[in-house]
């Protein structure tokens, strides 16, 4: 059955709705105008991804949430390239949240580009072919004799040209081509991909236009804040809401019991008023007695002692056990041990959590800066017992994400408050709320032991990983160790076990989950082993990689040792590895494979007597396949380096009695401009499918810097942040 035959019905907007099953089950919906009419404001040609408007401009819909990773620019670039549009004609708008049409719409796991690459190329190539065929028909020539050229269809022999805008109406009546009819551009012919394209919201950002979740305003909207128990899961015994209700600007105050699941809707006290300031001021005067009697009094200081005790025994779970590790240690020329520790981290996006919700009689409307809009709708349907089809979510730009907004607790709180008020409300968290009620990157501990044989190679590796669990069953989010982790999968003799500490905090995915801590531990210990073996670290790393191959044969999503070696060599070359150094100066190197990206980082720094670290230069060498937007890709990598420097320098949160101690940026010192070193980014653009840039440059930064600090001053750092060992940046 041809795609045209599947034309089903005329929908209420007067468009034919044609659905074709493309992309392994993801539906590409093409909306074609019933009557093409450029005069009534309707697009002359409209698909779910592209509209050609009456003024000949091309409107492309960005399908994923924008959180600063640049997809609102890079995803439309892919469509525009395959459409062979002139980028100057392109306007970008955020698409509707619509899973049947767009498939995955989530900002997480550096997946947006990788997961939508094929779909967006097909969306662009489909429109391009329809435009080309429309021109051929008009000129009465064979389509094969026509080509496209940056927004025009051209006839090669006669030299005739027509702008896409002049062809849109005719193109809309062309049959939608089948997938096997589509032609994709050769990389050499790209006009848009791989170039430097500036962000599509830049103009709005620099003029202060309302773009973000926090900027949302509706007629009749009330403002709300929500106070929760300092320790997770506390319930309200009593409160002074009767006094609070009398305060100026306060409309109402009430207790919400929550739904019993602190990951979704925790118990607390809501204050609703006429302005943000009125409710924030009233919130400070809240007096609430919490029932925390059933809660576990989690303690970070106690956990650190317990973890060290646990290291005396093997872990309770086996991660991997290959070769003969015990024999390797007996036969070893050198054996070394190291106890590594990484802290709990909040996400701290600069825009505190907020959401606007309107619980109407039979439907819920949400405006949210979320990373996971489909989850927000799906969970809201369950929590509030309404059909998902009655919930509409408007995706708004987010002031940073870093994984925090994969959780939608703030959305559900806004809905619950709106339900109670019967009015649209905007819920605003404070920075203190955000620090106290995050879903944290949990801490972790590793007891490592390594063996070097008489030839100076790693002959044995043993790890006991003490991680956290929040449900007494599985590891917390982003806190597991698997047998394919680097370097376990590369070694002949490796044994890793794990154990879990319980913690009464919510856990979450944090930029480069898992890798953000594991890279520091593994790459630092590999460096320790190279030092113990009296070997050059670069040669040692390359030897570990061995011959170019996929680590999981046939799995092109696994680590490729050839790609790894190339980026390691490039980073070393760019940092001038092996050059003569001044006293107190050190070079450090590290590699990590995360989110399908192969990334190496090299650091050149100096350490003075007061343990102050001056970073002279950081070099990133990365292979994430072809670069989509060079401006965005470079920016993401530099941002990842700065985020990683920030984190390794001084960032951590601690907790006692189940409550987070740090409350605001004065206790969570993000890196500043004057601490930011020169950073260089080098891409090795291999021909594999492109993968995301938001995360993979982060993990190798901490070990590269700590390895350089060791070379500079002889002190091995096994605990992050380095401020705990007296170092400053």
């Amino acid at each position, binding site marked *: 059955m041809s795609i045209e035959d599947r034309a089903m019905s005329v929908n209420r907007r007067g468009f034919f709705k044609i659905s074709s099953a493309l992309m392994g089950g993801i539906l590409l919906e093409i909306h074609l105008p019933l009557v093409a009419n450029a005069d009534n404001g309707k697009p002359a040609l409209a698909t779910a991804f592209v509209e050609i408007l009456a003024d000949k401009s091309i409107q492309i819909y960005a399908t994923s949430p*924008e*959180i*600063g*990773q640049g997809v609102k620019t890079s995803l439309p670039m892919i469509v525009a390239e395959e459409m062979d549009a002139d*980028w*100057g004609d392109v306007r970008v708008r955020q698409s509707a949240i619509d899973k049947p049409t767009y498939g995955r719409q989530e900002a997480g796991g550096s997946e947006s580009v990788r997961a939508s690459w094929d779909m967006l190329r097909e969306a662009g190539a489909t429109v391009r072919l329809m435009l080309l065929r429309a021109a051929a028909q008009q000129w009465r020539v064979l389509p094969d004799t026509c080509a496209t050229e940056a927004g025009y269809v051209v006839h090669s022999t006669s030299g005739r040209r027509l702008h896409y805008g002049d062809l849109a109406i005719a193109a809309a009546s062309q049959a939608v081509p089948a997938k096997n009819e589509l032609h994709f551009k050769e990389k050499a012919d790209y006009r*848009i991909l791989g170039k*430097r*394209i*500036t*962000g*599509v*919201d*830049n*103009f709005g*950002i*620099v*003029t*202060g*236009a*309302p773009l*973000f979740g926090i*900027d949302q*305003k509706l007629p009749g909207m009330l403002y709300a804040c929500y106070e929760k128990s300092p320790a997770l899961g506390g319930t309200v015994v009593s409160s002074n809401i009767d006094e609070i209700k009398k305060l*100026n*600007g306060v409309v109402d105050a009430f207790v919400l019991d929550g739904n019993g699941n602190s990951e979704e809707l925790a118990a607390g006290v809501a204050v609703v008023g006429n*302005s943000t*300031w*009125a409710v*924030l*001021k009233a919130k400070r005067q809240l007096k609430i007695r919490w029932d925390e009697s059933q809660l576990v009094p989690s303690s970070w200081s106690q956990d650190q002692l317990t973890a060290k005790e646990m290291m005396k025994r093997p872990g309770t779970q086996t991660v991997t056990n290959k070769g003969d590790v015990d024999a390797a240690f007996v036969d070893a020329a050198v054996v070394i041990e190291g106890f590594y520790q990484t802290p709990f981290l909040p996400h701290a*996006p*600069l*825009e*505190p959590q907020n959401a606007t919700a309107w619980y109407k009689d039979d439907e819920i409307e949400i405006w949210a800066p979320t990373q996971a809009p489909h989850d927000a709708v799906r969970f809201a349907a369950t929590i509030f017992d309404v059909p998902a089809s009655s919930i509409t979510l408007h995706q708004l*730009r*987010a*002031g*940073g*994400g*870093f994984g925090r907004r994969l959780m939608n607790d703030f959305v559900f709180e806004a809905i619950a408050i709106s339900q109670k008020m019967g009015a649209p409300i905007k819920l605003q968290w404070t*920075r203190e709320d955000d620090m106290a009620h995050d879903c944290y990157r949990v801490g972790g501990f590793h007891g490592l032991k390594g063996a070097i044989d008489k030839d100076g190679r790693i002959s044995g590796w043993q790890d006991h990983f003490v991680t956290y669990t929040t449900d007494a069953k599985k590891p917390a989010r982003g806190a597991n160790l698997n047998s394919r982790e680097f370097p376990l999968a590369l070694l002949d003799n490796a044994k890793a076990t794990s154990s879990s500490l319980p913690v009464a905090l919510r856990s979450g995915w944090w930029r480069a989950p898992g890798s953000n801590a594991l890279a520091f531990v593994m790459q630092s210990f590999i460096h320790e082993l190279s030092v113990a073996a009296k070997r050059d670290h670069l040669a040692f790393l390359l030897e570990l990689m061995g011959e170019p191959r996929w680590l999981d044969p046939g799995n092109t999503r696994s680590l490729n040792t050839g790609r790894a070696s190339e980026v390691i060599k490039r980073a070393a070359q760019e940092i001038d590895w092996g050059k003569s150094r001044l006293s107190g100066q050190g070079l450090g190197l590290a590699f990590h494979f995360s989110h399908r990206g192969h990334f190496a980082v090299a650091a050149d720094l100096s350490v003075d007597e007061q343990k102050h670290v001056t970073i002279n230069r950081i070099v990133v060498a990365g292979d994430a396949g072809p670069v989509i937007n060079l*401006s965005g890709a470079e*920016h*993401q990598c*530099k*941002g990842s*380096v700065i*985020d990683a420097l*920030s984190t390794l320098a001084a960032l951590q949160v601690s907790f006692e009695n189940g409550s987070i101690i740090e409350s*605001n*940026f004065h206790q969570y010192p*993000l*890196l*500043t*401009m*004057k*601490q*930011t070193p020169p*950073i260089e980014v080098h891409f090795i653009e291999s021909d594999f499918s492109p993968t995301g840039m938001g995360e993979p440059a982060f993990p190798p930064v901490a070990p590269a810097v700590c390895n350089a600090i060791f070379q500079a001053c002889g002190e091995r750092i096994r605990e992050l942040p380095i401020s705990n060992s007296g170092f400053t940046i």
Partner: protein
Amino acid sequence: MPTTSITINGKSHDVQSLDPEMPLLWYLRDELGLVGTKFGCGIGSCGACTVHINGLPMRSCRTPLSMLAGQEITTIEGLSGSDVLGPLQKAWVALDVPQCGYCQSGQLMAASALLVNNPQPTDDDIDAAMSGNLCRCGTYPRIRAAISMVANETLNPPTGVQIYDLETRNNLGEQT
């Protein structure tokens, strides 16, 4: 009777009926709809809420209305005066400075105050003036470059950059 009028982007506003403790930030955002000024920390430690008060960069989250009678305030919405974009804003777009963009209006206000007082800042001057404005995404290298670009009057997009926005392209004098 003391004056209760404050001037914001050249327009006078009477704030007599409002809570004198209300920080300027929330007055701008909720009462005037000038939402370019952002809430980040509420304690004056991140800089997202930076505005100019009598030309000086100040934290609007820590400045109550009661302190502002008779003062002249400029927000990001008034930064370019009668132009569509000021030079710093053009440089910000051309160098593709924003990532999430949330801190950028505060960064721009801090940068413009710097250049008024010190039109030819050294890199150290820029670092010193800008290090109170946090960027969680790490856009500092491009902020620094954009300020230098304006200070050195080399306001041209680097070779090979395609500016998305037509209005900006026109303002940069680019042929379109």
